[in-house]
């Protein structure tokens, strides 16, 4: 057993490089899917029937597909349409598109809970369309949705582990490499699990911090 931990320690550089990839791809995917999800929530809440229905069917589809299947569709399926993506781009694109559906729905749910008076007051003060969304709707919605968004970011980190299957060199991939070379499965995968844990604890305390600051400023 101690041999395993020693080998993992000797290859900590590889493991940490994997962690950096996981971190990097999760941060990019979180920011992009959050921004696109905010736009999607506008479509979801649209009074335009067709727009709302199209957005809704996109969200429903994403909620029915397992993430790995979606990755396969992007990586192996899109080349049928002449779109060939490298594994890194395909992985990042799948994470973004998939989670945009979830983020959009989270934001829309918080939006629905917003009291009508706030929006009507915004109208009365001359806020319209995008400025209304940006200045009146988004700030309180972002605050109520913050814990849910935090959970979704944890989900993005966990989903990124699936990308090992299309050979993105993230944390699980690094652990698999070390294990297959030296046959130290226990130490290699347990280290990966503990690093994911550290990442998620950091995200959760980050969300807690944001909420504490928001609470003080209210």
């Amino acid at each position: 057993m101690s041999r395993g931990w020693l080998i993992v320690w000797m290859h900590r550089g590889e493991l940490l490089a994997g962690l950096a990839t996981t971190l990097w791809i999760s941060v990019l995917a979180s920011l992009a899917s959050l921004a696109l999800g905010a736009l999607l929530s506008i479509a979801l809440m649209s009074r335009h029937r067709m727009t709302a229905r199209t957005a809704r069917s996109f969200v429903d589809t994403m909620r029915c597909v397992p993430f790995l299947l979606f990755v396969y569709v992007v990586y192996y399926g899109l080349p049928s349409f002449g779109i060939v993506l490298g594994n890194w781009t395909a992985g990042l694109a799948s994470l973004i598109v998939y989670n945009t559906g979830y983020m959009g729905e989270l934001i829309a749910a918080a939006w629905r809970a917003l009291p009508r008076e706030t929006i009507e007051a915004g109208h009365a003060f001359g806020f319209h369309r995008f400025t209304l969304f940006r200045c009146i709707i988004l700030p309180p919605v972002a605050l109520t949705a913050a814990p849910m968004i935090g959970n979704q970011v944890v989900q993005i980190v966990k989903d990124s582990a699936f990308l090992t299957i299309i050979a993105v060199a993230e944390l699980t991939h690094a652990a698999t490499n070390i294990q297959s070379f030296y046959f130290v499965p226990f130490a290699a995968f347990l280290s990966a699990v503990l690093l994911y844990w550290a990442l998620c604890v950091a995200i959760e305390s980050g969300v807690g911090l944001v909420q504490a600051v928001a609470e003080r400023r209210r």
Partner: protein
Amino acid sequence: MSGANWLALLQGGGITAVVSLAGIAIGLPFGLLLAVLRWLRVPVLAQAAAVYVSVVRAAPAVTLGLLIFFALPTIGIEIGPIPAGIATLAISTSAFDCEIFRGGLAAFPRDQLEAAMSFGMPAILRFRRIVLPQVLRNVRPALINEMTLIVKASPAIAVMGVVDITRAAVEIGAATYRPLPPFLAALVLYSLFVLVFVVLQRTAERRARAEAVA
């Protein structure tokens, strides 16, 4: 896609169903046990349960699956791919179920417990007759939601070489050089699974509301 392809995909569907349902069936009571340990504040065990839940909740199903499938044999436990898949999903879902049950237990009104105590009900009976039925009813929608999540996490067992829906679709796509039809068929199969749970969820919610009124 040929008939044989469809058959392979449906076989994958059977594997996905068996592994997911077995994982849920094992994970659910285990999650309840962990939640009760924390609720009763059993020394040492309650803290151990808290750490377990925190770590497992953060662990991706793929990584957890690799750990179970490759590491258990090194400590002398031989485990086949399908039992390893079931264990992965059971462990993963037990942590989330624990949190759901814990929420339900925390929201349980104290006065009912005290009333039962004043009637001289022993602790086990109190839990089984008073606490459990009400908590189960309140957390049912959340539990069913977690079940759909576990079906969606189930393709992770492909890393052990189990041929579930996703893996079957990939193999068909590789053999026929036309990956899109099997992927779309797989999507339909998963949607059917999720739909079953969504229908269950709606019924559960309607019943919970009706029972709350009554």
